[in-house]
């Protein structure tokens, strides 16, 4: 078995993975519904997509300290390309902390220190030579509260692109980004008006458009719908399904239904015995919510937490 309950990948090569007929492994393909013990053509195909699915982030024993205080520890997980991966868990369990480690947004916090290893396409994100501006240019982020710039709708999207040297066909780029964020039809006639005049849900989609306009590789979403009403939330969720075709998505959410609706894989974070946040269980979303292996996950998803 290659993927264990807490998400750690044991030292197995691709060859050994292919030999082991693991039900868990088969289940990692959401499309596969046939449960059989022996390797069939279907399971081999399903396994193939999993083992070949590129790992974007590889966390190994990641821990985070803020000064003396340890926020998270023992986080080991792989995040795969073109998947939407949800991080769920109670408040204070470190899921946002972990998310913000992935594009080094925690760097400016005084006393922040990361232990273990956090690789992005095999590159150590916290290597001394890794430039955080470059990291963030590739790994975009959308925040809990919509934070459009006090500029026009157009400039909100064009500003970063222009600064990164993407000056050609800027109008097209803006339109593409707005279409990508399912906002174009609503704003195409008022691109020059202030982004602050948009509704909360529109502002959040504008922030998504702004993030994808510079063509990042990964989108990190930090509770992107928590400040929105149900209709705006639904439109953001619908959008995530489309976005993951082009980007790798990692989403922190408080809302378990949301994780079930949008995520291919879900990681459950919680506090361990020493009240430090850690990864409890990481699995396919279907599996994690229907047959969790850890009692703490079960308690949380059935509402018996604490």
């Amino acid at each position, binding site marked *: 078995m290659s993927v264990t309950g807490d998400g750690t990948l044991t030292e197995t090569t691709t060859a050994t993975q292919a030999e082991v007929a693991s039900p868990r492994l088969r289940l990692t393909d959401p499309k596969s519904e046939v449960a059989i013990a022996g390797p069939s053509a279907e399971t081999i195909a399903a396994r193939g997509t999993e083992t070949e699915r590129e790992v974007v982030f590889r966390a190994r024993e990641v821990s985070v300290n803020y000064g003396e205080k340890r926020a998270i520890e023992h986080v080991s997980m792989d995040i795969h390309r073109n998947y939407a991966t949800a991080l769920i868990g109670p408040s204070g369990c470190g899921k946002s902390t972990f998310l913000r480690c992935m594009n080094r947004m925690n760097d400016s916090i005084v006393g922040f220190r990361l232990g273990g290893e956090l690789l992005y396409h095999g590159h150590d994100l916290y290597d001394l030579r890794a430039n955080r*501006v470059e990291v963030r240019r590739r790994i975009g982020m959308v925040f809990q509260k919509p934070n459009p*710039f006090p500029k026009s709708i157009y400039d909100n999207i064009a*500003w970063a692109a222009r600064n990164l040297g993407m000056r050609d066909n800027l109008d097209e780029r803006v339109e593409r980004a707005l279409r990508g964020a399912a906002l174009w039809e609503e704003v195409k006639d008022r691109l020059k008006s202030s982004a*602050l005049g948009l509704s909360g849900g529109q502002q959040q989609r504008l922030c998504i458009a702004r993030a994808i306009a510079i063509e990042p590789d990964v989108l990190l979403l930090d509770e992107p719908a928590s400040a929105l009403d149900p209709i705006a939330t639904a439109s953001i969720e619908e959008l995530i399904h489309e976005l993951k075709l082009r980007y790798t998505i990692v989403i922190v959410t408080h809302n378990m239904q949301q994780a079930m609706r949008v995520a291919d894989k879900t990681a459950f974070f919680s506090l361990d015995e020493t009240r430090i946040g850690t990864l409890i269980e990481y699995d396919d979303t279907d599996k994690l919510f229907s047959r969790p292996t850890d009692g703490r996950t079960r308690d949380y998803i059935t509402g018996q937490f604490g």
Partner: protein
Amino acid sequence: MSAITPDPAHSLTPSGNLVRRQLINRVFLAATVGAAGLAVLVLFILVYYVAKHGLGQLSFSFLFSQLPADAPNAPGGIGPALLGTVELVLIATVIALPVGVLLAIYLSEFAGPRANSLLRTLLDLMAGLPTIIAGIFVAGLIARRIGESAFAGGIALSIVEVPLIARASLESISRVPSTLREAADALGIARWRSIVGVVLPTASSGIVTATILAVARAAGETAPVLFTCDLFAQNFSVDPRHSIASVPLEIFNLMESGYPSAVDKAWGAALVLMIVILAMNISARVWLRRGERKRGL
């Protein structure tokens, strides 16, 4: 009937020591209203008095013509002084605006807590510095070498302006939500770029307001230009290498001369200066409110 545990049977009129407490309440209220009223009254009387004396002087020639040299009682106006004040303030602001804003950016975006508290204290000290000391400092250090001139006067006034611009800009920049900086960071924008592209435009109305208030303050300052920009310059002149007239010094000269007609002109000049400064203050505030509403601050 006890004051500690109210008797439910007692009517809801004040009981116990409430009558006394209400009286104290009214006395304090009256004191605060009185103080506020006094301040407004003083300003009102001041404006009224200056207007009453100065209004008669206002005319086209008073604003745009010059006083004949060495004859303060002869007819003439404060044209050179108005022009000179504009130039002095312009020189001061060209120096003070970049210094003040850069200082504010350093304090809000880069400085650590220790540098921050040190520099903020120094700025407060600088703001509280008697302006005549700024004047004597520039007179000794600069005017002595390059001579009394508009340039030296502008430098002295810039010392007055820097702490005002820096402090108010700092406050405005600090009010730019950190979420906007985060948004820019998350787009892979280098820090300096996001300051220029997001932080400063968002804080711009506050910075403009700070600048207008500093300009208004500098325009009325007398002491900094006293030793740095010759008292008796009275001709139309814009050459910054030479002394030029300024409205505060013109008022000083006219009052000192003692001629009744000159004193009348001093009132007129005071009225002009007051109107200009009040107008600048009011427009600064309007600008701030409108700009901040537009930028969602």
